[in-house]
């Protein structure tokens, strides 16, 4: 535990840079982000040694304790690595916040990282909730950093309210569990004596609380608003790590506190995950703001993680045997991979914003010529998020699909097969739509010609940002080609004997009957050999440059596809889900025979907000307004309420003695 205390001390130093005077804010920035870098590095290193077999002495005083078991260790590793990368990025990125509360940014950044690590280390309910709340508040302060803009503070406020609701649900779950055990430490709560009805209540509260924080549909509405509002490195950490911490909490509940699972719990988790994945990527393809696209993509990937977890739960409940854990391995591996991928993409979104000053991809185009390195890294990230082989996005996807196959082919009831097949189809849709989404993101932003003059003044990011993006791209590719360390670490975390056969460098799974093998290194070799051959043949082709044939006219940049146009077929295909609102108005006519000027407005309302949240909101406000009539402002009226109550109580006491 000393290592973690050392890391906490580093973060503490970073937090203390809040107190630097205004003139020293640059030093505060370097010190804060450097401290965060070192602290995260120590955490990652320690977590790695833990997963390799070391163990950690718990730290306890009174009834509060800090415990690090293997389930925490995976998430600590994830947090550490993401923290290192994003702090490196912040060294370059946060310099642009000079003069605009830079010390607060640095200090809160350290507090955020520290609170997340402490949530993972918490060994009893009170510490967990305390650090959870600190995490929520620190992230709120970070999201609200540019609070001059209306969109930022409304998004931050919505985030704060929703995360408080989630925390309330989690608190209820913890209190119910804790009151049925001897004390509130996790070890004691593991032997709780809840009866069945209360177990259902605890599951419902825990699932809704953690699902809200993880961003599953229908509780995801804060995600697409909060992530664009925050500075890019903050969004990266929130998407990459904070959502996984919600998964950590849910896992702890499922593994430790509710060891016997009901069939319907598993189905609910799986179905909610699959639906979130599908809806997330569908909305992602409709957005024009880079960060909203990435936020919806986070919703999608968290949906995949929870769907895989639900699949694992179902496997354990129904089939037993020793190969049920594939779902859990898949969920954890995908969580780890996704954090690296998402961090990379948010960093590249930040680079684009830093270089051009806008987030709207409709204004970009041809950025690859101005920002070549950013383009390269974004391309790697897009490939990873579209689950292309040879990147680590595919490893997680492969494992998730294998777990569903295992579930379907396990001798289970027809209805389970139907659920699993439906989720499988939804996941298939998700994979394909994700491909389209990231083709669109990369193609519209970086390729083609400039759609506005923002691109003229674009410039490449500075060396820290590029180094961070390069580091995470390298990790994406390495973990894609050589996934074994990650998978073995995850298996060690779940305390499984290595039933993942290690044949050379491949992943082999024998759960659904016979052997399925995924060997990325072999694939890479094959691809390399063929590429070499192709290169030899196409190396010295005679290339001539000429303008595209455009039926006789000179091509303009307005003729290329826009982002809205690119996603139109998918939008039209899912019309009944998205219900876009179109408004075409005819403005004026310049010429007698042709040339009308039209104005076209397209808006895709968030269906969940409209159909679920707003009616509930209206209902609540209506009831509150009605109840407000009780408060007339007259003291005498209030005293008469007191008097009436008193008389009633007395009479009641007298009559029913």
């Amino acid at each position, binding site marked *: 535990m000393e290592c973690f205390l050392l890391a906490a001390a580093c973060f503490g130093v970073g937090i203390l840079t809040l107190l630097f005077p205004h003139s020293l804010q640059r030093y505060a920035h370097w010190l804060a982000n450097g401290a965060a870098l070192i602290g995260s590095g120590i955490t990652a290193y320690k977590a790695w040694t833990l997963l390799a077999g070391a163990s950690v002495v718990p730290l306890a005083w009174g009834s509060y304790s800090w415990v690090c078991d293997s389930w925490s260790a995976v998430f600590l590793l994830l947090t550490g690595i993401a923290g290192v990368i994003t702090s490196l990025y912040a060294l370059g990125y946060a310099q642009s916040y000079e003069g605009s509360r830079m010390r607060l940014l640095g200090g809160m950044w350290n507090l955020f990282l520290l609170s997340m690590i402490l949530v993972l280390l918490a060994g009893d309910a009170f510490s967990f909730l305390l650090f959870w709340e600190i995490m929520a508040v620190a992230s709120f302060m970070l999201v609200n950093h540019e609070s001059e803009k209306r969109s930022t503070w409304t998004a931050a406020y919505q985030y704060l309210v929703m995360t408080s609701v989630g925390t309330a649900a989690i608190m209820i779950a913890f209190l119910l569990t804790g009151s049925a055990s001897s004390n509130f430490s996790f070890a004691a709560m593991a032997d709780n004596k809840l009866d069945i009805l209360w177990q259902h209540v605890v599951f419902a509260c825990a699932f809704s609380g953690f699902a809200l924080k993880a961003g599953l549909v229908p509780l995801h509405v804060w995600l697409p608003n909060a992530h664009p509002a925050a500075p890019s490195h903050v969004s990266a950490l929130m998407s990459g790590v904070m959502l996984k911490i919600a998964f950590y909490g849910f896992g702890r509940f499922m593994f430790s506190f509710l060891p016997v699972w009901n069939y319907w719990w598993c189905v609910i988790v799986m179905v909610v995950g699959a639906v979130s994945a599908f809806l997330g990527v569908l909305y992602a393809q409709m957005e024009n703001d880079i960060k909203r696209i990435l936020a919806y993509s986070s919703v999608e990937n968290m949906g995949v993680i929870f769907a895989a977890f639900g699949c694992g739960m179902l496997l354990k409940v129904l089939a037993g045997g020793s190969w049920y854990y594939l779902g859990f391995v898949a969920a954890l591996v995908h969580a780890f991979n996704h954090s690296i991928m998402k961090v990379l993409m948010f960093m590249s979104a930040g680079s684009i914003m830093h270089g051009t000053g806008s987030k709207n991809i409709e204004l970009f185009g041809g950025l690859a010529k101005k920002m070549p390195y950013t383009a390269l890294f974004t391309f790697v990230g897009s490939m990873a998020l579209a689950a292309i082989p040879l990147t680590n996005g595919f490893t997680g996807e492969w494992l998730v699909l294998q777990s569903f196959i295992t579930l379907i082919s396990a001798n289970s009831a027809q209805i389970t097969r139907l659920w699993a097949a439906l989720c499988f189809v939804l996941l298939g849709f998700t994979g394909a739509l994700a491909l389209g989404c990231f083709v669109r993101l990369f193609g519209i932003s970086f390729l083609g010609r400039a759609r506005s003059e923002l691109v003229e003044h674009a410039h490449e990011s500075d060396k820290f940002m590029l180094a961070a993006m390069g580091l995470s791209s390298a990790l994406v590719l390495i973990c894609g080609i050589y996934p074994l360390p990650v998978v073995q670490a995850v298996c060690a975390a779940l305390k499984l004997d290595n039933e993942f056969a290690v044949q050379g460098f491949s992943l082999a799974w024998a759960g659904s009957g016979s052997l399925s093998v995924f060997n990325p290194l072999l694939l890479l070799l094959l691809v390399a050999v063929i590429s070499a051959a192709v290169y030899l043949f196409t190396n010295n082709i005679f290339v001539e440059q000429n303008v595209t044939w455009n039926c006789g006219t000179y091509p303009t940049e307005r003729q290329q596809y826009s982002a809205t146009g690119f996603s139109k077929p998918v939008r039209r295909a899912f019309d009944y889900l998205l219900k876009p609102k179109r408004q075409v108005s005819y403005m004026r006519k310049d010429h007698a025979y042709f040339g009308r000027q039209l104005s076209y407005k397209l808006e895709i309302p968030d269906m969940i907000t409209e159909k679920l949240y707003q009616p509930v909101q209206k209902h609540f406000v209506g009831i509150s307004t009605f109840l407000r009539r009780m408060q*007339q402002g*007259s003291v005498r009226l209030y005293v008469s309420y007191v008097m009436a109550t008193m008389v009633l109580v007395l009479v009641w006491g007298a009559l029913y003695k």
Partner: protein
Amino acid sequence: MEYLVVSLMFIVFLQTRFMELRRATLCLAVQSALIAAACLVVGLSHGGGLHGWLPGILTIAVKVLFIPYAILRTVQGLRDEREIVSDINVNYSTAVAACSLALGYMVIDGLLPQAEGRDILATSMFMIMTGLTLIVMRSRAIMQMIGLITMENGIYLLGLIMTEGLPLIIELGIFLDVLIAVVILVILTSRLRLSFRTTDTNVLDKLKG
């Protein structure tokens, strides 16, 4: 003691009928004097000595002399009110007071059957209820204050009867009276007068949220 109780009931009924501030205050003084007398009686019956006399003397000093004097001083300063406020008809207050007396007897019979001092208990309940009634039904701040003090007298009486001897609670009650009298009475009334040039508390409902 019974005479005290009956005269207390009578005085409280009378209290509900006064609308003028000075007369109401004098009535309050008489009422407090009766309470003080009750306190003396109880103190003497539980053994004499300083401890028996002192609460009674303190009660006289605070409730009979100091508080009505403070109220009268405040009333003197209220000459330049904006308008004549309209209170609810006094007959209604008296009717409610009568009902609360009946209620008091009913409650005492229900809760504590065969209690000694049944009349005193019922009277204290009656005084509490009447005090609340006065607060609810009067709109001027001073009258509401008088109602509050009536209610407190009722609680004081209840405390006298329920406890054996005269414990510290009695002294605390006296000091609470002082606090209320000074802080709330003076400050509230003077602030109201400064802000609105009237002590009609109905103006306070502009402050609702």
